[in-house]
């Protein structure tokens, strides 16, 4: 007796076709993304754009290049908060910065910077540790819209209280308000914080090594990738780090299925801070 045949869901088929259309027509490859979250994000792009369904969006995306930045922004790294998971920033300050201090020049790469919440957090902590003048931070994202927002350094004022609490919990030495101006409903971070940040477009799924980094921050980005792409990007991080360089991932990321993780040793497993043992 034959088993009931489980037929593919129309939305799964549409998602596959959409991924293929975006890749073949525009060069953005989402085929290594974990399907469950990608599907949700596609649904939200469809809803916010007022399309009848994903098939309707496929038709548009094939012919209307102007739509692409908006779609890419909808599928890119979500917004974070300043000093998110303050204990992680405390670990960076206490465990990682003292070792970075031994280098004459410090290169830091934040991969997937979204609107810049974490890159400014890092700049503030480096400033307070007296390391910022010899630091260069590369803040990258594959969404130009996100990079433009990140460069502005403007955030809603309603977030300021949480940011301040996080900053204090991370061991900040001053008041976060020293670093921003509040106006109307928004806060704007001090432009001086940007003096060693270089914002650049980089796509983790397609682009290669571009710097020799002493620290790479990539928090809650790889969770959106399937095991194979996660492993590929960990390999890219390994190849981009100096010997003994540091990697900081999101608090709940698992490396259990990534062979490339063998190159890293956890220095704080809870904070997901790793160190490159040797060049692989």
């Amino acid at each position, binding site marked *: 007796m*034959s*088993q*009931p*045949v*489980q*037929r593919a*869901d129309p939305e*799964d088929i549409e998602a596959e076709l959409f991924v293929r259309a975006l890749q073949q027509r525009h060069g953005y490859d989402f085929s290594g993304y*974990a*399907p*469950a*979250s990608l*599907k*949700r*994000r596609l649904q939200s792009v469809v809803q916010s754009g007022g399309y009848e369904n994903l098939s309707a969006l496929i038709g548009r995306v094939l012919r209307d290049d102007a739509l692409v930045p908006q779609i890419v922004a909808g599928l890119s790294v*979500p*917004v*974070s908060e300043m000093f998110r*998971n303050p204990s992680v920033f405390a670990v960076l300050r206490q465990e990682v910065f003292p070792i970075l201090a031994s280098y004459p020049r410090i290169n830091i790469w934040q991969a997937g910077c979204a609107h810049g919440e974490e890159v400014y957090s890092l700049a503030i902590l480096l400033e307070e540790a007296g390391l910022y003048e010899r630091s260069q931070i590369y803040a990258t994202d594959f969404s130009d819209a996100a990079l433009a927002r990140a460069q502005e350094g403007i955030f809603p004022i309603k977030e300021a209280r949480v940011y301040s609490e996080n900053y204090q919990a991370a061991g900040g030495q001053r008041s976060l308000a020293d670093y921003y101006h509040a106006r109307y409903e928004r806060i704007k971070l001090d432009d001086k914080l940007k003096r060693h940040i270089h914002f650049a477009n980089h796509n983790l799924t397609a682009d290669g090594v571009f710097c020799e980094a002493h620290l790479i921050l990539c928090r*809650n980005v790889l*969770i*959106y990738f399937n*095991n194979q792409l996660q492993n590929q990007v960990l390999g890219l991080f390994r190849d981009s780090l100096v010997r003994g360089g540091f990697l900081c991932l*999101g*608090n*709940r*990321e*698992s490396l*259990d*299925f990534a062979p490339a993780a063998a190159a890293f040793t956890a220095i704080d497993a809870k904070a997901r801070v790793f160190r490159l043992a040797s060049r692989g």
Partner: protein
Amino acid sequence: MPRRASFGWPAVAEAPSAVVVGASAGGVHALGTLLAGMSPSICCPLIVVCHTGSEDVEMLRDVLALKSALPVQEAQERHMPRPGIAHLAPAGYHLLMEVDGCFALSVDDRVCYSRPAIDVLFESAAAVHHARLIAVVLTGANHDGAAGLKTIRRAGGLAIVQSPADAIAAAMPEAAIRIAGADHILPLAGIAPLLNSLCLP
């Protein structure tokens, strides 16, 4: 060729492959009671989203572990849920079921002001487990879980909702019943025995 009807598998479904549970206000107490009544020999995993607002799920895990008849663990991304284990969504992340059955996490926007959100777990689980999914909505003061429960029922899954009158906060089970409907509406004390009878091998 036999084919699956659009509303799901035939009613003579195989054994359930997962139980998903959502709880909010009053959830710690309700989950404690539910897990205390579960049989450790159930044939499928239990996957739980509980809104706590705390930065860590460890306290919830430890509190529940004191009462639970099942081992209570935090769900780990990329890992497969295991039968007879209660897996908790980590704090600050949405917990999803991936198409291969493994756990996935996201930090996408809050849904119903919540992350983890019950709707996100429920909707992703429906796409994987179809009619072999059982969903439970417990006490809570918002409407998270209702939309997800509707998706689960449409995919042929079974919906169990705590009786609003029996819940510490009635809004969430009420919303679930209003928006999705339910196959069973039961007081808390009746839910574990029903799950055991549905999930024993």
